[in-house]
Protein backbone atom coordinates (compact mmCIF):
# COMPACT_ATOMS: atom_id res chain seq x y z
CA UNK A 1 0.00 0.00 0.00
CA UNK A 2 3.05 2.27 -0.07
CA UNK A 3 1.96 3.81 -3.32
CA UNK A 4 -1.71 4.10 -2.57
CA UNK A 5 -3.18 7.49 -3.34
CA UNK A 6 -5.16 9.27 -0.71
CA UNK A 7 -7.51 10.82 -3.26
CA UNK A 8 -7.82 9.61 -6.81
CA UNK A 9 -10.28 10.77 -9.42
CA UNK A 10 -10.47 9.51 -12.94
CA UNK A 11 -12.26 11.16 -15.86
CA UNK A 12 -14.89 12.68 -13.63
CA UNK A 13 -17.52 14.75 -15.43
CA UNK A 14 -20.61 16.35 -14.05
CA UNK A 15 -23.58 17.81 -15.89
CA UNK A 16 -26.30 19.59 -13.97
CA UNK A 17 -29.55 18.75 -15.73
CA UNK A 18 -31.10 21.72 -17.49
CA UNK A 19 -34.70 22.73 -17.09
CA UNK A 20 -37.07 21.67 -19.86
CA UNK A 21 -35.44 21.94 -23.29
CA UNK A 22 -32.07 23.32 -22.24
CA UNK A 23 -29.08 21.02 -22.51
CA UNK A 24 -27.87 21.32 -18.94
CA UNK A 25 -24.77 22.84 -17.43
CA UNK A 26 -21.46 21.02 -17.72
CA UNK A 27 -19.80 21.87 -14.41
CA UNK A 28 -16.82 19.50 -14.65
CA UNK A 29 -15.22 17.97 -17.70
CA UNK A 30 -13.03 14.90 -17.61
CA UNK A 31 -11.19 15.68 -14.38
CA UNK A 32 -8.31 13.37 -13.49
CA UNK A 33 -5.74 13.73 -10.69
CA UNK A 34 -4.40 12.07 -7.58
CA UNK A 35 -3.28 13.31 -4.21
CA UNK A 36 -0.77 11.48 -2.06
CA UNK A 37 -1.25 10.88 1.66
CA UNK A 38 -0.25 13.87 3.75
CA UNK A 39 -0.06 16.14 0.73
CA UNK A 40 -1.48 19.68 0.74
CA UNK A 41 -2.96 20.28 -2.71
CA UNK A 42 -4.71 23.43 -3.87
CA UNK A 43 -7.16 23.51 -6.72
CA UNK A 44 -6.93 26.96 -8.26
CA UNK A 45 -9.52 28.17 -10.72
CA UNK A 46 -11.91 31.03 -11.43
CA UNK A 47 -15.37 31.19 -9.86
CA UNK A 48 -17.86 28.84 -11.42
CA UNK A 49 -15.30 26.41 -12.85
CA UNK A 50 -16.63 23.49 -10.83
CA UNK A 51 -14.44 23.45 -7.72
CA UNK A 52 -17.25 23.08 -5.20
CA UNK A 53 -18.90 20.54 -7.46
CA UNK A 54 -15.74 18.46 -7.25
CA UNK A 55 -15.55 18.63 -3.45
CA UNK A 56 -19.21 17.68 -3.18
CA UNK A 57 -18.49 14.61 -5.26
CA UNK A 58 -15.49 13.67 -3.12
CA UNK A 59 -17.39 14.17 0.14
CA UNK A 60 -20.19 11.94 -1.07
CA UNK A 61 -22.79 14.73 -1.02
CA UNK A 62 -23.23 14.42 -4.79
CA UNK A 63 -23.33 10.93 -6.24
CA UNK A 64 -24.63 11.83 -9.70
CA UNK A 65 -21.50 12.02 -11.83
CA UNK A 66 -19.56 10.16 -14.51
CA UNK A 67 -16.14 8.64 -13.96
CA UNK A 68 -14.60 7.24 -10.81
CA UNK A 69 -13.57 8.94 -7.60
CA UNK A 70 -12.01 7.16 -4.68
CA UNK A 71 -10.52 7.94 -1.31
CA UNK A 72 -8.07 5.47 0.18
CA UNK A 73 -8.78 3.16 -2.74
CA UNK A 74 -12.52 2.95 -2.01
CA UNK A 75 -15.16 4.61 -4.18
CA UNK A 76 -16.55 7.77 -2.60
CA UNK A 77 -20.05 7.83 -1.17
CA UNK A 78 -21.82 6.14 1.67
CA UNK A 79 -19.86 2.93 1.50
CA UNK A 80 -16.66 4.83 2.11
CA UNK A 81 -17.75 5.98 5.55
CA UNK A 82 -15.65 3.55 7.50
CA UNK A 83 -12.76 3.50 5.04
CA UNK A 84 -11.53 7.01 5.67
CA UNK A 85 -12.26 9.85 8.02
CA UNK A 86 -13.18 12.86 5.92
CA UNK A 87 -13.76 16.39 7.17
CA UNK A 88 -15.16 19.25 5.14
CA UNK A 89 -14.69 22.97 5.80
CA UNK A 90 -17.14 25.02 3.79
CA UNK A 91 -17.00 28.56 2.53
CA UNK A 92 -19.35 29.52 5.34
CA UNK A 93 -18.80 28.20 8.88
CA UNK A 94 -22.00 26.08 8.81
CA UNK A 95 -22.18 25.88 12.57
CA UNK A 96 -25.51 25.06 14.15
CA UNK A 97 -26.49 28.37 15.76
CA UNK A 98 -28.48 26.74 18.56
CA UNK A 99 -25.45 24.82 19.78
CA UNK A 100 -22.40 26.25 21.51
CA UNK A 101 -19.04 25.95 19.77
CA UNK A 102 -18.23 22.98 21.97
CA UNK A 103 -21.55 21.28 21.23
CA UNK A 104 -21.02 21.86 17.50
CA UNK A 105 -17.74 20.00 17.68
CA UNK A 106 -19.37 17.29 19.78
CA UNK A 107 -21.85 16.77 16.96
CA UNK A 108 -19.04 15.95 14.51
CA UNK A 109 -17.36 13.70 17.07
CA UNK A 110 -20.51 11.75 17.76
CA UNK A 111 -21.23 11.47 14.02
CA UNK A 112 -17.72 10.06 13.59
CA UNK A 113 -18.42 7.60 16.43
CA UNK A 114 -15.60 8.91 18.57
CA UNK A 115 -16.07 7.58 22.09
CA UNK A 116 -17.48 10.30 24.33
CA UNK A 117 -14.76 9.75 26.90
CA UNK A 118 -12.37 11.42 24.45
CA UNK A 119 -14.56 14.39 23.60
CA UNK A 120 -13.42 16.85 26.23
CA UNK A 121 -9.74 16.25 25.64
CA UNK A 122 -10.08 16.47 21.87
CA UNK A 123 -12.22 19.58 21.92
CA UNK A 124 -9.92 21.37 24.35
CA UNK A 125 -7.00 20.50 22.12
CA UNK A 126 -8.49 21.74 18.84
CA UNK A 127 -9.95 24.85 20.44
CA UNK A 128 -6.48 25.66 21.74
CA UNK A 129 -5.05 25.10 18.25
CA UNK A 130 -7.42 27.66 16.72
CA UNK A 131 -7.01 29.89 19.79
CA UNK A 132 -10.63 29.71 20.83
CA UNK A 133 -10.05 28.10 24.22
CA UNK A 134 -12.11 30.74 26.01
CA UNK A 135 -15.01 30.55 23.59
CA UNK A 136 -16.12 26.94 23.77
CA UNK A 137 -19.31 27.82 25.60
CA UNK A 138 -20.28 30.66 23.27
CA UNK A 139 -22.97 30.41 20.67
CA UNK A 140 -21.81 30.98 17.08
CA UNK A 141 -23.86 34.14 16.67
CA UNK A 142 -21.94 35.67 19.56
CA UNK A 143 -18.68 35.33 17.62
CA UNK A 144 -17.20 37.24 14.70
CA UNK A 145 -17.05 35.69 11.23
CA UNK A 146 -13.36 34.85 11.59
CA UNK A 147 -13.92 33.20 14.96
CA UNK A 148 -16.80 31.17 13.55
CA UNK A 149 -14.64 29.93 10.70
CA UNK A 150 -11.91 29.00 13.20
CA UNK A 151 -14.53 27.03 15.13
CA UNK A 152 -15.45 25.18 11.95
CA UNK A 153 -11.78 24.40 11.35
CA UNK A 154 -11.56 23.14 14.93
CA UNK A 155 -14.56 20.92 14.23
CA UNK A 156 -12.83 19.51 11.16
CA UNK A 157 -9.61 18.64 12.98
CA UNK A 158 -11.43 17.30 16.03
CA UNK A 159 -12.32 14.12 14.17
CA UNK A 160 -8.64 13.77 13.22
CA UNK A 161 -9.42 13.47 9.53
CA UNK A 162 -7.27 11.52 7.15
CA UNK A 163 -8.64 13.64 4.35
CA UNK A 164 -9.64 17.28 4.77
CA UNK A 165 -11.65 19.04 2.07
CA UNK A 166 -11.70 22.85 2.20
CA UNK A 167 -13.86 25.00 -0.04
CA UNK A 168 -12.57 28.59 -0.14
CA UNK A 169 -12.79 28.71 3.67
CA UNK A 170 -11.17 32.14 3.96
CA UNK A 171 -12.70 33.94 1.00
CA UNK A 172 -15.47 35.57 3.02
CA UNK A 173 -13.03 37.03 5.55
CA UNK A 174 -11.02 40.22 5.46
CA UNK A 175 -7.46 39.76 4.22
CA UNK A 176 -5.84 40.32 7.63
CA UNK A 177 -7.95 37.65 9.30
CA UNK A 178 -7.49 35.34 6.33
CA UNK A 179 -3.69 35.64 6.62
CA UNK A 180 -3.69 34.68 10.27
CA UNK A 181 -5.98 31.74 9.59
CA UNK A 182 -3.83 30.45 6.70
CA UNK A 183 -0.79 30.48 8.93
CA UNK A 184 -2.72 28.77 11.68
CA UNK A 185 -4.02 26.16 9.25
CA UNK A 186 -0.47 25.27 8.18
CA UNK A 187 0.62 24.92 11.79
CA UNK A 188 -2.26 22.60 12.58
CA UNK A 189 -1.74 20.65 9.38
CA UNK A 190 1.89 20.23 10.47
CA UNK A 191 0.75 18.44 13.62
CA UNK A 192 -1.98 16.30 12.03
CA UNK A 193 -0.53 15.69 8.56
CA UNK A 194 -3.94 15.09 7.04
CA UNK A 195 -4.25 15.00 3.29
CA UNK A 196 -5.68 18.41 2.37
CA UNK A 197 -7.53 19.31 -0.79
CA UNK A 198 -8.00 23.07 -0.63
CA UNK A 199 -10.06 24.89 -3.21
CA UNK A 200 -9.47 28.57 -3.96
CA UNK A 201 -9.60 31.24 -6.64
CA UNK A 202 -6.79 33.16 -4.95
CA UNK A 203 -3.38 32.47 -6.55
CA UNK A 204 -1.41 33.89 -3.66
CA UNK A 205 -3.32 31.77 -1.17
CA UNK A 206 -2.66 28.65 -3.25
CA UNK A 207 1.04 29.44 -3.45
CA UNK A 208 1.37 30.16 0.24
CA UNK A 209 -0.39 27.00 1.34
CA UNK A 210 0.22 24.13 -1.00
CA UNK A 211 2.69 21.46 -2.00
CA UNK A 212 1.12 21.37 -5.41
CA UNK A 213 -1.34 23.53 -7.35
CA UNK A 214 -3.82 22.05 -9.80
CA UNK A 215 -5.19 24.71 -12.13
CA UNK A 216 -8.60 24.72 -13.71
CA UNK A 217 -9.99 26.59 -16.72
CA UNK A 218 -13.19 28.63 -16.72
CA UNK A 219 -16.59 26.96 -16.71
CA UNK A 220 -18.67 25.66 -18.32
CA UNK A 221 -16.82 22.45 -18.63
CA UNK A 222 -13.98 23.45 -16.30
CA UNK A 223 -10.91 21.30 -17.02
CA UNK A 224 -7.67 20.68 -15.18
CA UNK A 225 -5.13 22.42 -17.39
CA UNK A 226 -1.90 22.80 -15.45
CA UNK A 227 0.00 21.69 -12.40
CA UNK A 228 2.64 23.53 -10.40
CA UNK A 229 4.92 21.76 -7.94
CA UNK A 230 5.79 23.92 -4.94
CA UNK A 231 7.59 21.40 -2.77
CA UNK A 232 10.81 23.33 -3.36
CA UNK A 233 9.32 26.32 -1.57
CA UNK A 234 10.61 25.72 1.97
CA UNK A 235 8.22 25.57 4.92
CA UNK A 236 7.38 27.24 7.18
CA UNK A 237 6.52 29.96 4.69
CA UNK A 238 5.96 33.56 5.62
CA UNK A 239 4.11 36.40 3.99
CA UNK A 240 7.28 38.50 4.00
CA UNK A 241 9.21 35.85 2.12
CA UNK A 242 10.16 37.27 -1.29
CA UNK A 243 10.26 33.82 -2.87
CA UNK A 244 6.64 33.13 -1.91
CA UNK A 245 5.67 36.44 -3.45
CA UNK A 246 7.70 35.86 -6.64
CA UNK A 247 6.32 32.36 -7.02
CA UNK A 248 2.77 33.58 -6.61
CA UNK A 249 3.39 36.04 -9.45
CA UNK A 250 4.47 33.28 -11.78
CA UNK A 251 1.40 31.29 -10.66
CA UNK A 252 -0.82 34.24 -11.60
CA UNK A 253 0.92 34.50 -15.00
CA UNK A 254 0.37 30.82 -15.66
CA UNK A 255 -3.26 31.13 -14.62
CA UNK A 256 -3.81 34.14 -16.87
CA UNK A 257 -2.22 32.32 -19.79
CA UNK A 258 -4.85 29.60 -19.37
CA UNK A 259 -8.00 31.53 -18.65
CA UNK A 260 -7.38 34.79 -20.53
CA UNK A 261 -7.78 37.44 -17.85
CA UNK A 262 -8.53 37.73 -14.17
CA UNK A 263 -11.15 40.42 -14.66
CA UNK A 264 -14.12 38.33 -13.79
CA UNK A 265 -13.30 37.74 -10.15
Amino acid at each position, binding site marked *: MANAASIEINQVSKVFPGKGQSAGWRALDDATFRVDPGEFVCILGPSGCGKSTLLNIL*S*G*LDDQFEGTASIHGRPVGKRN*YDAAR*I*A*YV*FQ*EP*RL*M*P*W*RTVRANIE*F*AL*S*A*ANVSSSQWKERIDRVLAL*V*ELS*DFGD*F*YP*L*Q*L*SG*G*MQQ*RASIARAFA*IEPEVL*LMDEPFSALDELTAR*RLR*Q*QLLTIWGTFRSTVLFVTHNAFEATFLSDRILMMTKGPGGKFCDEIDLRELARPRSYEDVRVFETSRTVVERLVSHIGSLDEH
Partner: protein
Amino acid sequence: MSLQPLSVTRFVPSILSRKSAEDRARVSRWFEAHAADRVIKFASVLSLLGLWYFGAALLPASVMPAPHIVARVLLHEITLPRIWINVAITMTRIVFAFGLAMSVALVLGFAMGLSKTAARFFDVWVVCGLSLPSLVLILTIFMIVGLNDRAAIIAAAIPVVPILTINIWEGIKNVDQKLIDMAKAYHADRRRIIGSVIAPQIAPTMLASARFGLGLIWKMVLFVELLGRSDGIGYQIEYYYQMFNMSEVLAHALLFLLIMLFIEIILLGKLERRLFRWRPIQRRI
Protein backbone atom coordinates in the same frame (compact mmCIF):
# COMPACT_ATOMS: atom_id res chain seq x y z
CA MET B 1 1.45 35.32 17.50
CA SER B 2 -1.73 35.80 19.42
CA LEU B 3 -5.05 35.56 17.71
CA GLN B 4 -7.16 37.29 20.31
CA PRO B 5 -9.87 38.82 18.19
CA LEU B 6 -9.74 42.57 17.88
CA SER B 7 -13.45 42.89 18.12
CA VAL B 8 -14.32 40.83 21.18
CA THR B 9 -16.23 43.58 22.92
CA ARG B 10 -18.40 44.14 19.93
CA PHE B 11 -19.64 40.58 19.72
CA VAL B 12 -19.49 39.22 23.20
CA PRO B 13 -21.92 40.01 25.99
CA SER B 14 -20.74 41.48 29.24
CA ILE B 15 -19.47 38.29 30.93
CA LEU B 16 -15.96 38.62 29.57
CA SER B 17 -15.13 42.26 29.93
CA ARG B 18 -17.11 43.21 32.98
CA LYS B 19 -14.55 45.79 33.95
CA SER B 20 -14.63 47.98 30.90
CA ALA B 21 -16.48 51.26 31.20
CA GLU B 22 -17.83 50.88 27.70
CA ASP B 23 -19.48 47.70 28.78
CA ARG B 24 -21.09 49.22 31.79
CA ALA B 25 -22.45 51.96 29.58
CA ARG B 26 -23.95 49.32 27.32
CA VAL B 27 -25.61 47.60 30.26
CA SER B 28 -27.21 50.84 31.41
CA ARG B 29 -28.36 51.52 27.89
CA TRP B 30 -29.97 48.08 27.84
CA PHE B 31 -31.87 48.83 31.04
CA GLU B 32 -32.82 52.20 29.73
CA ALA B 33 -34.19 50.71 26.53
CA HIS B 34 -36.15 48.10 28.44
CA ALA B 35 -37.47 50.59 30.98
CA ALA B 36 -38.68 52.71 28.07
CA ASP B 37 -40.37 49.64 26.71
CA ARG B 38 -42.20 49.05 29.98
CA VAL B 39 -43.34 52.66 30.19
CA ILE B 40 -44.74 52.57 26.67
CA LYS B 41 -46.60 49.31 27.34
CA PHE B 42 -48.03 50.70 30.56
CA ALA B 43 -49.14 53.86 28.78
CA SER B 44 -50.72 51.74 26.08
CA VAL B 45 -52.80 49.76 28.58
CA LEU B 46 -53.80 52.97 30.36
CA SER B 47 -54.99 54.61 27.16
CA LEU B 48 -57.02 51.51 26.28
CA LEU B 49 -58.75 51.86 29.62
CA GLY B 50 -59.16 55.56 28.91
CA LEU B 51 -60.82 54.80 25.58
CA TRP B 52 -63.16 52.39 27.32
CA TYR B 53 -64.14 55.07 29.87
CA PHE B 54 -64.60 57.53 27.05
CA GLY B 55 -66.94 55.12 25.26
CA ALA B 56 -68.79 54.42 28.50
CA ALA B 57 -69.31 58.15 29.03
CA LEU B 58 -70.78 58.56 25.55
CA LEU B 59 -72.99 55.46 25.49
CA PRO B 60 -75.70 54.34 27.91
CA ALA B 61 -74.45 52.08 30.71
CA SER B 62 -76.62 49.23 29.43
CA VAL B 63 -74.67 49.22 26.14
CA MET B 64 -71.20 49.95 27.40
CA PRO B 65 -70.68 49.75 31.17
CA ALA B 66 -67.56 51.46 32.50
CA PRO B 67 -64.51 49.32 33.39
CA HIS B 68 -64.96 49.60 37.16
CA ILE B 69 -68.57 48.33 36.88
CA VAL B 70 -67.43 45.34 34.81
CA ALA B 71 -64.61 44.75 37.28
CA ARG B 72 -67.07 44.73 40.18
CA VAL B 73 -69.31 42.22 38.38
CA LEU B 74 -66.28 40.08 37.58
CA LEU B 75 -65.03 40.16 41.17
CA HIS B 76 -68.40 38.96 42.32
CA GLU B 77 -68.64 36.23 39.63
CA ILE B 78 -65.28 34.70 40.45
CA THR B 79 -66.39 34.02 44.01
CA LEU B 80 -69.12 31.74 42.64
CA PRO B 81 -68.40 28.26 41.24
CA ARG B 82 -70.55 28.64 38.09
CA ILE B 83 -68.11 30.74 36.07
CA TRP B 84 -65.26 28.38 36.92
CA ILE B 85 -67.26 25.37 35.80
CA ASN B 86 -67.87 27.10 32.48
CA VAL B 87 -64.21 28.05 32.20
CA ALA B 88 -63.32 24.40 32.74
CA ILE B 89 -65.80 23.25 30.08
CA THR B 90 -64.50 25.75 27.55
CA MET B 91 -60.88 24.96 28.37
CA THR B 92 -61.52 21.26 27.80
CA ARG B 93 -62.98 22.02 24.38
CA ILE B 94 -60.00 24.24 23.60
CA VAL B 95 -57.56 21.49 24.53
CA PHE B 96 -59.27 18.94 22.29
CA ALA B 97 -59.84 21.33 19.39
CA PHE B 98 -56.25 22.54 19.61
CA GLY B 99 -54.92 18.98 19.67
CA LEU B 100 -57.04 18.07 16.69
CA ALA B 101 -56.14 21.16 14.65
CA MET B 102 -52.41 20.83 15.38
CA SER B 103 -52.34 17.12 14.54
CA VAL B 104 -54.07 17.58 11.20
CA ALA B 105 -51.98 20.65 10.35
CA LEU B 106 -48.76 18.85 11.31
CA VAL B 107 -49.55 15.91 9.05
CA LEU B 108 -50.54 18.17 6.14
CA GLY B 109 -47.69 20.62 6.69
CA PHE B 110 -45.06 17.89 6.87
CA ALA B 111 -46.47 16.12 3.83
CA MET B 112 -46.40 19.38 1.87
CA GLY B 113 -42.93 20.27 3.08
CA LEU B 114 -41.44 16.91 2.24
CA SER B 115 -43.21 16.06 -1.02
CA LYS B 116 -43.73 18.35 -3.99
CA THR B 117 -46.68 16.23 -5.13
CA ALA B 118 -48.37 16.56 -1.75
CA ALA B 119 -47.69 20.31 -1.82
CA ARG B 120 -49.37 20.67 -5.19
CA PHE B 121 -52.25 18.43 -4.17
CA PHE B 122 -53.09 20.02 -0.82
CA ASP B 123 -52.40 23.55 -2.00
CA VAL B 124 -55.89 23.69 -3.49
CA TRP B 125 -57.44 22.40 -0.27
CA VAL B 126 -55.60 24.96 1.80
CA VAL B 127 -56.61 27.83 -0.47
CA CYS B 128 -60.24 26.68 -0.42
CA GLY B 129 -60.14 26.26 3.36
CA LEU B 130 -58.73 29.76 3.75
CA SER B 131 -61.32 31.43 1.58
CA LEU B 132 -64.32 29.57 2.98
CA PRO B 133 -65.96 31.62 5.77
CA SER B 134 -65.54 29.91 9.16
CA LEU B 135 -69.25 30.34 9.82
CA VAL B 136 -70.13 28.19 6.81
CA LEU B 137 -67.67 25.50 7.89
CA ILE B 138 -68.98 25.49 11.46
CA LEU B 139 -72.65 25.32 10.47
CA THR B 140 -71.91 22.55 7.98
CA ILE B 141 -70.14 20.49 10.62
CA PHE B 142 -73.00 21.00 13.09
CA MET B 143 -75.38 19.81 10.36
CA ILE B 144 -73.31 16.73 9.60
CA VAL B 145 -72.20 15.68 13.08
CA GLY B 146 -75.12 17.00 15.12
CA LEU B 147 -75.39 19.55 17.91
CA ASN B 148 -73.01 17.84 20.29
CA ASP B 149 -69.60 18.28 21.87
CA ARG B 150 -67.81 16.27 19.20
CA ALA B 151 -69.18 18.60 16.54
CA ALA B 152 -68.22 21.65 18.59
CA ILE B 153 -64.62 20.48 18.85
CA ILE B 154 -64.35 19.58 15.17
CA ALA B 155 -66.07 22.81 14.16
CA ALA B 156 -63.64 24.88 16.22
CA ALA B 157 -60.62 23.00 14.88
CA ILE B 158 -61.28 22.81 11.14
CA PRO B 159 -61.34 26.55 10.30
CA VAL B 160 -57.90 26.93 11.90
CA VAL B 161 -56.25 24.01 10.10
CA PRO B 162 -55.45 25.74 6.76
CA ILE B 163 -53.58 28.68 8.24
CA LEU B 164 -51.67 26.42 10.65
CA THR B 165 -50.78 24.11 7.78
CA ILE B 166 -49.29 27.01 5.85
CA ASN B 167 -47.25 28.05 8.88
CA ILE B 168 -45.83 24.59 9.44
CA TRP B 169 -45.18 24.08 5.73
CA GLU B 170 -43.20 27.33 5.61
CA GLY B 171 -41.16 26.25 8.61
CA ILE B 172 -40.22 22.99 6.94
CA LYS B 173 -39.38 24.65 3.64
CA ASN B 174 -37.02 27.00 5.47
CA VAL B 175 -34.85 24.24 6.91
CA ASP B 176 -31.25 25.06 6.03
CA GLN B 177 -30.04 22.53 3.45
CA LYS B 178 -26.46 23.68 4.02
CA LEU B 179 -26.51 22.42 7.60
CA ILE B 180 -27.94 19.10 6.45
CA ASP B 181 -25.12 18.83 3.90
CA MET B 182 -22.62 19.63 6.64
CA ALA B 183 -24.06 16.82 8.76
CA LYS B 184 -23.93 14.43 5.81
CA ALA B 185 -20.33 15.40 5.02
CA TYR B 186 -19.46 14.51 8.61
CA HIS B 187 -21.21 11.18 8.10
CA ALA B 188 -24.02 11.78 10.56
CA ASP B 189 -26.64 9.06 10.26
CA ARG B 190 -30.29 9.71 9.45
CA ARG B 191 -31.45 9.65 13.03
CA ARG B 192 -28.84 12.21 14.03
CA ILE B 193 -29.68 14.45 11.08
CA ILE B 194 -33.36 14.45 11.90
CA GLY B 195 -32.94 14.77 15.66
CA SER B 196 -30.01 17.17 15.88
CA VAL B 197 -30.14 19.19 12.66
CA ILE B 198 -33.70 19.30 11.35
CA ALA B 199 -35.80 19.20 14.53
CA PRO B 200 -34.07 22.16 16.20
CA GLN B 201 -34.65 24.20 13.04
CA ILE B 202 -38.36 23.54 12.83
CA ALA B 203 -38.96 23.75 16.60
CA PRO B 204 -39.26 27.57 16.56
CA THR B 205 -41.89 27.46 13.81
CA MET B 206 -43.75 24.69 15.58
CA LEU B 207 -43.88 26.64 18.80
CA ALA B 208 -44.85 29.86 17.04
CA SER B 209 -47.56 27.99 15.14
CA ALA B 210 -48.82 26.46 18.37
CA ARG B 211 -49.10 29.87 19.99
CA PHE B 212 -50.75 31.34 16.95
CA GLY B 213 -53.09 28.35 16.65
CA LEU B 214 -54.08 28.54 20.30
CA GLY B 215 -54.94 32.22 19.88
CA LEU B 216 -57.24 31.37 16.98
CA ILE B 217 -58.73 28.25 18.54
CA TRP B 218 -59.97 29.81 21.74
CA LYS B 219 -61.84 32.50 19.86
CA MET B 220 -63.27 29.83 17.57
CA VAL B 221 -64.39 27.73 20.56
CA LEU B 222 -66.24 30.69 22.09
CA PHE B 223 -67.90 31.27 18.73
CA VAL B 224 -68.91 27.64 18.38
CA GLU B 225 -70.32 27.58 21.92
CA LEU B 226 -72.32 30.66 21.15
CA LEU B 227 -73.74 29.00 18.04
CA GLY B 228 -74.47 25.50 19.18
CA ARG B 229 -73.81 24.66 22.83
CA SER B 230 -75.66 25.27 26.09
CA ASP B 231 -72.66 25.58 28.39
CA GLY B 232 -69.20 27.11 28.41
CA ILE B 233 -68.08 30.73 28.44
CA GLY B 234 -69.23 31.32 24.85
CA TYR B 235 -72.74 30.23 25.79
CA GLN B 236 -72.71 32.43 28.91
CA ILE B 237 -71.76 35.41 26.81
CA GLU B 238 -74.60 34.66 24.39
CA TYR B 239 -77.00 34.14 27.32
CA TYR B 240 -76.23 37.46 28.98
CA TYR B 241 -76.32 39.17 25.62
CA GLN B 242 -79.88 37.92 25.16
CA MET B 243 -80.62 39.32 28.60
CA PHE B 244 -79.12 42.70 27.61
CA ASN B 245 -76.68 42.36 30.48
CA MET B 246 -73.54 43.85 28.99
CA SER B 247 -71.66 43.98 32.30
CA GLU B 248 -71.85 40.20 32.53
CA VAL B 249 -70.95 39.80 28.85
CA LEU B 250 -67.86 41.92 29.27
CA ALA B 251 -66.97 40.36 32.62
CA HIS B 252 -66.98 36.86 31.12
CA ALA B 253 -65.07 37.97 28.06
CA LEU B 254 -62.53 39.81 30.21
CA LEU B 255 -61.89 36.85 32.50
CA PHE B 256 -61.34 34.54 29.59
CA LEU B 257 -59.17 37.04 27.79
CA LEU B 258 -56.96 37.33 30.87
CA ILE B 259 -56.65 33.56 31.22
CA MET B 260 -55.73 33.06 27.56
CA LEU B 261 -53.28 35.97 27.52
CA PHE B 262 -51.62 34.45 30.54
CA ILE B 263 -51.22 31.10 28.77
CA GLU B 264 -50.21 32.55 25.41
CA ILE B 265 -47.78 35.22 26.45
CA ILE B 266 -46.49 34.29 29.86
CA LEU B 267 -46.28 30.49 29.66
CA LEU B 268 -45.61 29.86 25.97
CA GLY B 269 -43.57 33.05 25.60
CA LYS B 270 -41.33 31.98 28.49
CA LEU B 271 -40.92 28.53 27.00
CA GLU B 272 -40.01 30.06 23.64
CA ARG B 273 -37.45 32.37 25.16
CA ARG B 274 -35.91 29.56 27.15
CA LEU B 275 -35.69 27.22 24.15
CA PHE B 276 -34.23 29.82 21.83
CA ARG B 277 -31.75 31.49 24.10
CA TRP B 278 -29.11 31.14 21.40
CA ARG B 279 -30.81 33.73 19.26
CA PRO B 280 -29.01 37.00 19.91
CA ILE B 281 -32.00 39.24 19.23
CA GLN B 282 -35.10 37.98 20.92
CA ARG B 283 -38.37 38.71 19.31
CA ARG B 284 -40.37 40.68 21.84
CA ILE B 285 -44.08 40.33 22.22
